[in-house]
């Protein structure tokens, strides 16, 4: 494949794969409650995930190790179990949220309660993993994910005030509801910096047999792809700020979210929203279920690979085969998918130091990276964002759960 095509595909993956249940829900809440004020949180989260994805790709290309492989080797089994448990728990919650997003799309389309869709949705996701190949999962979901660009079209049609949007890029103290503001800010960071993204990326780079010749491709696709992806999330926030905020609608019930696109794009907007929600969440669920299997199999040295037949990687296949129905049961039990999603994003933010710091240690080890170790800027920036997000989540999460 030509380098140009690889870069184009990588960027498409960044755009089509960025928006999922978490980034959509948090962007909609931020826009409806605080107008443009929280755009900066999307910018911070996007910059952070771009840097982390680049690191995971560089680690895979230079050391030929996936992230779990390298972590187990470098830190030993005792320490490895901590990030393993944290990533697995957070990924499971996010997987439930994505299945929740798929089932909501089906409820909007059919009128049948989302609870009934949880098991069929999980079955469909499982069937694609069971029968599909890695290329199909990765490329298929990102191509179809381009439907999320409908948010950019809608945002442009609403003619947002450019100066106002730009002002939102600068973090400022909230004008009202401080606790709520920081909770949403930290949920946005959690939604952007989902560990499944860079763990999945490192497995993909090894599965595609990257070497040092891919370092430039990696840098461009991570940087440009994630920036464009973040733009889609900003567009969703802008739609919420212009459609829901003036009408005084706060996104506290999921039924309110489709209004995002019905106002700017009329009836077609409703169906575009349903399609975007379905595809974005379905694609994310595929990747997270696969990443859970990668994580455990790589950590324990089992045979793994989405291109193998399930019987040739039995333990690997067993992990997603068990995780999907369990995650679906959470939704079928009747928990509110929107609340679950926002809570999962805050939990992700809380776990960031545990999931990110081991990666930083590896990225500074010449044993793995030769001369391609991290510079101090990316070290300091990622460390600062993870620690601050964790501290804010630690304060904001109880306030949110027990009411302020």
């Amino acid at each position, binding site marked *: 494949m030509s380098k140009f095509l690889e870069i184009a595909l990588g960027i498409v993956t960044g755009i089509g794969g960025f928006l999922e249940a978490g980034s959509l829900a948090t962007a909609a809440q931020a826009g409806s409650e605080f107008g443009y004020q929280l755009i900066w949180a999307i910018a911070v989260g996007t910059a952070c995930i771009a840097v982390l994805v680049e690191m995971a790709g560089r680690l895979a290309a230079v*050391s*030929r*190790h996936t992230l779990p*492989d390298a972590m*187990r*080797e470098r830190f*030993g*089994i*005792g320490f*490895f*179990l901590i990030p393993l448990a944290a990533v697995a728990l957070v990924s499971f919650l996010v997987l439930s949220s994505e299945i929740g997003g798929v089932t909501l799309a089906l409820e909007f389309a059919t009128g049948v309660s989302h609870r009934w869709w949880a098991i069929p949705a999980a079955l469909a996701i499982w069937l694609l993993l*069971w*029968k599909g190949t890695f290329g199909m999962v990765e490329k298929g979901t990102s191509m179809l994910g381009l439907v999320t660009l409908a948010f950019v079209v809608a945002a442009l049609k609403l003619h947002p005030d450019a100066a106002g949007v730009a002002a939102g890029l600068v973090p400022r103290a909230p004008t009202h509801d401080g606790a709520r503001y920081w909770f949403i800010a930290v949920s946005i960071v959690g939604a952007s910096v989902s560990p499944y993204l860079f763990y999945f990326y490192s497995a993909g780079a090894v599965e595609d047999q990257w070497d040092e010749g891919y370092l430039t491709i990696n840098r461009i696709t991570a940087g440009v792809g994630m920036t464009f992806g973040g733009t889609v999330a900003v567009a969703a926030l802008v739609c919420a700020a212009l459609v829901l905020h003036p009408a005084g609608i706060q996104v506290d019930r999921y039924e309110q979210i489709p209004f995002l696109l019905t106002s700017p794009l009329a009836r077609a907007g409703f169906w575009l929203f349903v399609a975007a929600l379905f595809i974005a969440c379905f694609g994310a669920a595929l990747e997270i279920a696969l990443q859970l299997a990668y994580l455990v199999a790589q950590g*324990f*040295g*089992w*045979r*793994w690979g989405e291109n193998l*037949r*399930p*019987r040739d990687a*039995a*333990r690997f*296949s*067993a992990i997603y*085969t068990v995780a999907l129905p369990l995650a679906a049961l959470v939704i079928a039990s009747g928990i509110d998918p929107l609340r679950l999603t926002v809570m999962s994003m805050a939990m992700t933010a809380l776990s960031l130091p545990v999931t990110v710091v081991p990666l930083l240690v590896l990225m500074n080890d010449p*044993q793995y990276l030769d001369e391609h170790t991290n510079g101090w800027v990316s070290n300091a920036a990622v460390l600062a964002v993870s620690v601050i997000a964790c501290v804010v989540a630690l304060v904001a999460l109880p306030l949110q759960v027990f009411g302020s």
Partner: protein
Amino acid sequence: MLIGRDIMDQQVVDARGRLMGKVDGVVLELHEGEAAHLAGIVIGGTTLLWRLHRGLARWAERKLGGEGRITYVPWSKVGKVGVDIKVDVEAPRTPAFRWEHWVRDHFIGRIPGA
């Protein structure tokens, strides 16, 4: 070569490139008056458990039957030590795939299309 850095917890790959597991432990031979000698590597859940929790490991060995269930690869069969540790054995002839095959035969293999 350092045991802790270059051997422990490394990926083990068999003669046909199959992923066998991680190095969960090493066996050292001690003889009076000689330097310790690396006899081989061990792959297996109970060996791993010994490194995490002694009580749990003792319980697991009683339940599962202990040493017969772990895979021992003598150092003479260990080839290249690089990104992975390549060993000159056939993984299916060792106990390394016991769980893999159990899951295949009792669960995954029974689902249509596996």
